[in-house]
């Protein structure tokens, strides 16, 4: 009797195992550590960044489940979701369709997981640096923007939607780092880094502040915040191909310009303007509590400063002595359409016909106050919000954040090299040579 029971149990067990082969996937490993990965979170969107810094309890690993009753499903992060929902309601009413906007804490990771399981939403809100990875996975569909529509957008925002000569998204906002200054503590904007340091040191001596500058470095480094130092001196991360795309085979982390920038970082580390003790958890707090007069950050930090009642000004990043002005990475926020969208027609219509309108772009401006990608909308919001033009001025000369998957193997090694240089553990030249070797090796491994 027992033997037969066991046989039945075992047979059912085997059947279940076989059944699983056709069905579920069990790799939640990527999303289980959502947003904690040093490299990608450093480069992640402002929205993700600010939520992570604000309340750790919001870091949930729970995947949203696709709303099956809707005719269009959109996943967005918590910051953009309210405004996307507003637009979705308008679109739904005008076309008689039901739209669901769902919040995902880690849109990129959760989308990829859902995509593998065949449960992906139709549209996601994301940043331009996701493109290469999503294309490699075959997870997003090309988008056709007619030439007359595309020409209405900021040229760099349109460039950001392209990968291998194909357009993959509709942009809505441009974001970049700038120098945010407490005007009560520092009435004039420093033109150079040296000026900034001497102003900061004076304030520190007078006991008004504890830190010269707040700029995220952290113990494992932050290549996104460190990049402007490299670009100031003509360095950078990747060279470009003839068509302007980034070329993963041309890593320029140890180019003369990059090393010059790294040397500047080391100098700033010595005087205490840069510090590995400042990271995503305390950078904004330092500025908001008036413990520093300057912070290098993006539009996502502004709501916290407004809440703290700080009088601030947004200035372009200062220039580095012996080099030029620091130029930040440009991140472009955009809407992607899933390649396996269950409602492809509605999704494409929503993205290409509806989101390209001025009123939609102006609504999306309210997501973190990023300068709108559509020129007409940009001109409009500049009139009511003086910050917008300032962010755009700080973006001048900046290059797009690389959207090639090879960028994934840069964040870690380059960030750590920057942290080691700032803390004085290593010499810039030797350390960046090593980082270059490591990055090239990792890219070759694929």
């Amino acid at each position: 009797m027992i033997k037969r029971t066991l046989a039945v149990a075992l047979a059912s067990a085997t059947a279940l195992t076989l059944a699983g082969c056709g069905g579920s996937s069990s790799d939640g490993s990527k999303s289980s550590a959502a947003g904690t990965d040093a490299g990608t979170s450093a480069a992640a969107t402002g929205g993700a960044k600010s939520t992570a810094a604000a309340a750790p309890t919001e870091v949930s690993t729970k995947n949203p489940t696709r709303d099956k009753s809707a005719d269009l499903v959109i996943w967005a992060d918590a910051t953009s979701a309210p405004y996307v929902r507003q637009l979705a309601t308008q679109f739904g009413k005008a076309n008689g369709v039901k739209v669901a906007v769902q919040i995902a804490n880690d849109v990129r990771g959760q989308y990829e997981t859902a995509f593998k399981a065949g449960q992906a939403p139709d549209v996601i809100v994301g940043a331009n640096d996701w493109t290469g990875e999503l294309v490699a996975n075959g997870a997003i569909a090309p988008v056709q923007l007619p030439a007359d529509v595309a020409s209405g957008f900021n040229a760099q925002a349109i460039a950001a939607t392209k990968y291998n000569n194909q357009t993959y998204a509709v942009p809505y906002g441009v974001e970049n780092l700038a120098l945010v200054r407490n005007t009560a503590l520092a009435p004039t904007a420093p033109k150079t880094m040296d000026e900034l340091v001497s102003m900061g040191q004076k304030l520190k001596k007078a006991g008004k502040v504890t830190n010269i500058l707040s700029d995220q470095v952290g113990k494992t480094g932050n290549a996104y915040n460190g990049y402007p130092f490299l670009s100031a001196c003509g360095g950078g991360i990747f060279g470009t191909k003839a068509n302007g795309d980034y070329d993963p085979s041309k890593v320029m982390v140890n180019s003369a310009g990059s090393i010059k920038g790294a040397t500047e970082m080391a100098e700033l580390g010595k005087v205490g303007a840069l510090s590995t003790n400042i990271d995503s958890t305390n950078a904004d707090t330092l500025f908001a509590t008036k413990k520093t007069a300057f912070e290098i950050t993006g539009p996502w930090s502004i709501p916290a400063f407004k809440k703290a009642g700080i009088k601030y000004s947004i200035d372009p990043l200062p220039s580095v002595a012996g080099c030029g002005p620091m130029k930040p990475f440009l991140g472009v926020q955009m809407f992607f359409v899933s390649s396996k969208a269950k409602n492809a027609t509605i999704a494409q219509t929503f993205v290409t016909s509806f989101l390209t309108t001025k009123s939609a772009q102006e609504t999306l401006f309210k997501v973190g106050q990023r300068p709108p990608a559509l020129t007409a909308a940009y001109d409009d919001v500049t009139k009511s919000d003086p910050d917008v033009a300032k962010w755009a001025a700080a973006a001048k000369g900046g290059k797009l954040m690389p959207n090639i998957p090879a960028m994934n193997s840069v964040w870690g090694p380059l960030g750590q090299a920057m942290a080691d240089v700032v803390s004085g553990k290593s010499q810039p030249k030797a350390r960046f040579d090593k980082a270059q070797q490591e990055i090239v090796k990792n890219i070759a491994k694929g």
Partner: protein
Amino acid sequence: MAATASTREESLTSLPPVTTPWWAHLCKWGVIALGIVLTFYVATKLADAGHTFAVIGVAFVAMCGLLVYGTRRAVPAKYLFFGVVLLVGLQVWPIVYTAATSLTNYGQGHLASKEDATRQDIAYSVQQVAGSPTYTLTVAVKDGQSISSGDLYFLLTDNKGQTYVGDKTGLKPLAKDSVTLQAGKIVKADGFTTLNLLQANKRKDLGQFAVPTKDGGGIKASGFAAAYEGKPTLDWDKKAGTITDTTTKQVYVAKDAQWVPKNGKGQPLPVGWKENVGFDNFRTIFTDSTIRGGFLKIFIWNVCFAALSVLTTFVFGMLLALLLNDSRIRGRGLYRSLLILPYAVPVFVSALVWGSMFNQQFGLINNLTHLDIDWLGNAWGARAAILITNLWLGFPYMFIVCTGALQSLPGDVLEAAKIDGASAWRTLRSVTGPLLLVAVGPLLIASFAFNFNNFGLIQLLTQGGPFNSGNAQIGSSDLLITYAYRLALGGTTPDYGLAGAVAIIIFALVALMSFPGFLRSKQLEEVN
């Protein structure tokens, strides 16, 4: 033995038959019916998603359940069935799945089959034909045809205002007087029924539909209201197994599960496919110099971390338990509840809070002690910080367990020790200690296994760092599990196959190390 058994059986059969009350039957069949309804629901969900094997599996399990619980037979199975199903579903299946994945190249850029991946590559190569107009589109079917299945027609207006009708044979001009235009879009046409957005969306063939134009191009819909003339630049020659880019004349061949340029110049096509790679992932782990170099160092720290975590939390928890077990202390209940608090706070929160407390410049610890230790930027500092945090997180558990065990110790042996004149230390060492270990020994081993893979703590506190100069893969405070995570999922291309292989090796290591521990705990039981 045999005789007693048979007499017992006799006495059992001689008892009057037990009659089950009617409500018990009702309950039983109610629960069974509920179970069937539930599995039916699951099966329909799976059928919706198209998982044929899963549906068969669920049906099979449901039938087995019915057989086991619906009949009077198979009494032992009634106890085992649920456990076996859960064991297989939650333990055996993940291991099998992980093992199967470790033999593939499944990972970023290698998710789909070769067929699907190539189709996607070709779809990505579609470019708008140079100089072609953009059309305003209306999707329609012929009058009298079904909206959901009739042949599709594109009613198009180009930017000069010319109107056309396109079907699967080609594009023809459409007389302007037969249509009604609204802002350049055809809203009505004689002989056609137009589709609205919702109706067009339901036509899943719309995505594949193209009005053929010359040179292999086609007019395709972009959404519901616009169309463009597009043409793929890639041409897949299935027989020859090559793909040719018609604009650059570049030829691609299949290699390493993706299409790479035949002449070796240029980038491969973006989408690759999933294929079996045998034991390649295991070979990588054992032969790659970076992986091998870091492995031993990380392994040693991993063992030390797990052992020290267990030791420190256990000793601290036990001492507190012994202290608060003394009946002379007043308000023990209050103290005990307070000590359990760290256990009640989620690790997410406490690890992040401790992380900021260890900050060199702004952290509470350096500020209170007036030290200037670079806790998280120095290898030993980071390790110490982790152990201190884990002590805080872990001692309440040990405290609870020890308190429970202490209260269940037999009073007579302690009394005997007292009568024999044993000192407090001697009692602890020879009586309380061994008896306590019997009770908590297996828990210590479980705690060791848990800490061995304590991913969350490391990831939240140090992310494995600080990293050695020139190698951002191997962190000073990395555990094998965080190392594997970075290696497999944090690189250029997240690789689930490699992650699976590392997970299996870690599984084997933990099993090998826990085994002697469990053997020893059996020996402890023999003390009794």
